[in-house]
């Protein structure tokens, strides 16, 4: 089992990728920059489990994004944020 690559506070960016198959990373968050809020734990990779393969156990992070960053036309407060739980292989350092 690999060590967690990111720590709370680390700036990251969600990979902009559009693979086929069973993908749990929502389209709206791909390509967006955020900050690691916490490591949630390590979980089986749903992209493999969906095909009844055990696959790898991967770190899952809760990542915090500014709403203004996610939605260009966002009309709420500047400090509003959204947390999305994302597996490590979808994240890169920002």
């Amino acid at each position, binding site marked *: 089992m690999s060590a967690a690559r990111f720590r709370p506070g680390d700036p990251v960016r969600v990979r902009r990728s*559009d693979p*086929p198959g*069973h993908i749990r990373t*929502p*389209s*709206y*968050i791909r390509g967006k920059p955020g900050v690691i809020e916490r490591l949630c734990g390590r979980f089986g990779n*749903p992209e493999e*489990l*969906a*095909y*009844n393969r055990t696959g790898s156990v991967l770190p899952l992070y809760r990542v915090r994004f500014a709403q203004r960053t996610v*939605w260009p036309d966002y009309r709420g407060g500047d400090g509003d944020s959204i947390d999305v739980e994302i597996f490590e292989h979808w994240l890169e350092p920002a």
Partner: protein
Amino acid sequence: MRRPHDLGGLPGGPVVPSEHDFALWEKRVDALLVLLGEKGLVRVDELRRNIEGLGEGAYERYGYYERWIEAVTATLLERGVLTADEIGRKLAELAAGQATA
């Protein structure tokens, strides 16, 4: 390849909060999935994949438990738990029973 479940950020219309009673068959589908999960015959990830992989328009057209039973069926076929022939014969048997009842 954005699938029909991946709705974040798309116009969705108003949310209509309403309660409804579950039909007996819906409760049976729920129970069936719990049992299959306990026996290790269906993973929730497989079920989700098969729900999201329903044919064009089916995700919107089907009701909640209709999606479930379609996906359970697809998973059991993939796993080799049931064959299409077994399912087909059983459906014909049930239909014949209803016709004579």
